[in-house]
């Protein structure tokens, strides 16, 4: 929190004696466990807020909501959302969620995890759940590094970006998550930043209303690790970066907008680079039978059991 923001907190005798402030999301949050663990400027809380509003607008009842997280900052949303919530092991949220969904298909099961959890240690589960068209909504908070362990390089760290394990710049190439998800069979694929709160909320509403393997990538600031290591500045500075107001990141200044909304779903050029605008938008929205549709159609016995 910057000092400028502190000034906006007006403290008067009236507000101090007033009943505790009710947040619009109190009914869908476990407000009793707040404050949360996330750092100032972190984008995960924004993503969670948009997600919960999206579920509300999609009409998903509270007792049908299941959220499964792996390990890492992003997976901690399971503690704060009012839902049946499971904080599992690193990388294994998708198969755990698969078991829940198949055991009780009436549940709306979401996996909420970070880029390292879903695409490094858990990458195999992601591609297979998408291939099966398992009826899951998978939300990846992509903050370009391992935040909880202090900012190491991960599978989405942009080439050349500095982290604590790539002090001279990342010598590996990152995954392009929308392209990956589309290639392995996801029926809904979108990418937004935490600046696009309303678009993100509407995206969650839309995704929550669909069936099959749905993937939403949320680009989120990690100011204390990735932001610091790459001279991006605070979380707000990264928001400004998304808006294209400043040229902070990398050396190739002069681009009018650092984030471009793509309307036509074309996945070309959606790789994230320090040197190009970031393309956001909805890339895939299609229908194909889910795992359970196919199981019911094919696996049920045509002949008597032994």
């Amino acid at each position, binding site marked *: 929190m910057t000092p400028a923001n502190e000034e906006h907190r007006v403290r008067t005798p009236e507000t101090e004696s007033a009943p505790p402030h009710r947040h619009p999301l109190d009914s869908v949050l476990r407000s009793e466990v707040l404050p949360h663990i996330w750092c100032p400027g972190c984008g995960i809380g924004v993503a969670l807020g948009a997600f919960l509003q999206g579920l509300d607008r999609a009409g998903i009842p509270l007792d049908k909501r299941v959220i499964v997280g792996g390990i890492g900052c992003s997976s901690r949303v399971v503690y704060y959302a009012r839902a049946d919530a499971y904080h599992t092991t690193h990388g294994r949220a998708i198969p755990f969620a698969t078991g829940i969904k198949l055991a009780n298909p009436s549940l709306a099961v979401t996996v909420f995890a970070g880029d390292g959890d879903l695409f490094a240690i858990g990458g195999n*589960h992601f591609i*297979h759940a998408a291939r099966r068209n398992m009826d899951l909504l998978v939300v990846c908070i992509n903050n370009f590094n391992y935040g909880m362990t202090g900012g190491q390089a991960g599978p989405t760290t942009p080439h050349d970006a500095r982290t604590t394990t790539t002090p001279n710049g990342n010598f590996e190439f990152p995954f392009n998550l929308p392209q990956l998800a589309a290639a392995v069979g996801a029926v809904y694929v979108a990418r937004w930043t935490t600046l696009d709160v309303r678009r993100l909320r509407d995206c969650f509403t839309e995704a929550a209303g669909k069936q099959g393997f749905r993937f939403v990538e949320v680009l989120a600031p990690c100011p204390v690790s990735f932001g610091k290591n790459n001279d991006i500045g605070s979380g707000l500075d990264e928001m400004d970066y998304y808006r294209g107001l400043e040229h902070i990141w990398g050396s190739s200044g002069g681009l009018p907008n650092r984030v471009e909304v793509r309307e036509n779903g074309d996945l070309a050029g959606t790789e994230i680079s320090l040197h190009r605008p970031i393309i956001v938008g909805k890339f895939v929205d299609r229908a194909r039978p889910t795992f359970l549709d196919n199981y019911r159609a094919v696996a049920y016995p045509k002949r008597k059991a032994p």
Partner: protein
Amino acid sequence: MTEEKGVALTGSHFMLGDQACAEGAIYAGCRFFAGYPITPATEIAERMAERLPGIGGQYIQMEDEIGSIAAVLGASVAGVRAMTATSGPGFSLMQENLGLGFMMEVPCVIVNVQRGGPSTGLPTSVGQQDMMQARFGSHGDYAAIAYTPSSPQEAFELTVDAFSTSERLRTPVLVMMDEVVGHMRERVVIPEAGKRTTLSRRLPSVPPSEYRPFRVDDDLVPEMALAGGGYSVRMTSLTHDELGRAVTDTATQAVLLPRLLRKVSEHREVYEQYELRHVKDAEVLVVAYGITGRSATGAVEAARARGARVGLFRPKTVWPFPAEALLRAARSVRRVVVAEINMGQVALEVERLIAGKCPVVRVTSPGGEVLSPELILEACGQDRGARVRR
């Protein structure tokens, strides 16, 4: 759980140990199986893939054994009895989430049809080399419960019991088979549905507003709210308090971990099973389990036929080891012989319990073959011209 009529294959069958294990699961109400092909456990997956769709169950072949056990845990927290089956390499991959099941207190059954190791080892031949892994394979302190069937009939019965124990104590339970028991075809008698009883997990007895997910009474086993049950369940792999909140401090750990261990150690009556044979006047006691229990039975009977005072202690639950029962059986023996198809694993536990009161002789094997009754007889001091009728 009341079994649907016609689901249990009541009657006498000629089937593989692996198939009997699958039928035991179905008999016990298992309606979810997630697995990955691996010799010599594949026939369990095949049987479940054939049987489950027709009885309202779910089979899924996962991308690996890590995903398999994770899916099993997920199915169980949503209220469906669930199992996976594997062998050594897959069992290694499952270890982390086995700990998750213990920490979250998720009932489920994990079958390991053991083959020779280490690594890929002897994929198609017998071993009992994962016994200590069954006890200590996942990181952190935890209490394992492991059954060891000696025949297809026991593969059926002990798999039923494994489900009952896992439900009763809210914890993962292992069935440590071996390749020979898994691939042996014998008569298996399946009782009428419900005849071999299985216990069920306790569901919340209070409304959501009063529910404290990990509160326990003297029983030490918390009531379990299911996903979708309206209880706003919160379960975590982190150290947690009675409300299920992650509280990673030493005080919370000091409450949680001892309770999880005592929950198992103080309910021996739920799971402890063993067979005694000729132990009353025994001077030599043979300890063996799984397929080696069959060799040992042959050895003990051959010794008795010649008038030698040899008895058998065959644990059907190896973990927690039936310590008091062993010490009672070994009270007046001059020698204990431990036979197993490894280089000495359960022998370590027996040696610890016997604590030097008499010699403990190990009959070991690097794996690949069943131990012969002659070898066991020899270790009993009965090697002169020993012949065992097969």
